[in-house]
């Protein structure tokens, strides 16, 4: 992971990407006990996309491939980790990148999404594995429910949250 994060930080220093935040299962591991995952989700702002044009990850892939990284479907392997770069798809993901928490992993600086954003994004995506992750956050009391409620309200996810609560009444809330 050290080499992976160093490569991503170098891309940021070189202006290939803007701010980024680790999300998904690896991001959740910052708050929870580790759970098996085979990839790393990096939510990433791309610098100055031209208005009205499609967002392209081509510069990211060009940068990494020129340094020996290999492309694997929607991933690119960096330092032994298949990494998926995800430009923010909505205001929730933009906020999650903007408000990410600075930390260190293996001596390398990085940014992790806040717990309430990880839960809100998992709720909005809504696959079984996302629901399982939300339940872990609740069971391990790893998310501040008041802060979560504010995020859910701001991004119109309260109704979906209530549905989730009815589906999983044992969710510890």
């Amino acid at each position, binding site marked *: 992971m050290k080499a992976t994060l160093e490569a991503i930080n170098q891309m940021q220093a070189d202006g290939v990407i803007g701010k980024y935040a680790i999300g998904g299962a690896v991001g959740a591991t910052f708050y929870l006990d*580790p759970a098996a995952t085979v990839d790393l989700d990096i939510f990433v702002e791309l610098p100055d996309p031209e208005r009205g044009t499609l967002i392209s990850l081509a510069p990211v892939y060009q940068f990494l491939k020129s340094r020996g990284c290999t492309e694997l479907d929607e991933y690119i392997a960096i330092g032994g980790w298949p990494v998926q770069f995800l430009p923010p798809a909505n205001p929730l993901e933009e906020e999650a990148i903007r408000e990410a928490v600075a930390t260190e992993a293996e001596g390398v600086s990085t940014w992790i999404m806040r717990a309430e954003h990880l839960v809100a994004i998992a709720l909005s995506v809504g696959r079984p594995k996302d629901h399982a992750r939300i339940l872990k956050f609740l069971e391990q009391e790893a998310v501040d429910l008041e802060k979560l409620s504010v995020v859910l309200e701001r991004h119109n996810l309260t109704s979906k949250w209530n549905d989730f609560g009815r589906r999983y009444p044992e969710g510890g809330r």
Partner: protein
Amino acid sequence: MSKPKLQARMAKLSFTEKIKILEKLRDREKAIAAAGLRRKPPKANAADEE
């Protein structure tokens, strides 16, 4: 040790320590997948074949 207690203890590890565990779990997943030990979903038309 109970599972909730073990989870709580693991959750308190540093991010660096957790990353090391993640890497071991990832390698195990890869080994299982490479060995074809993953349970395959039943065929959709299994009932038809009987």
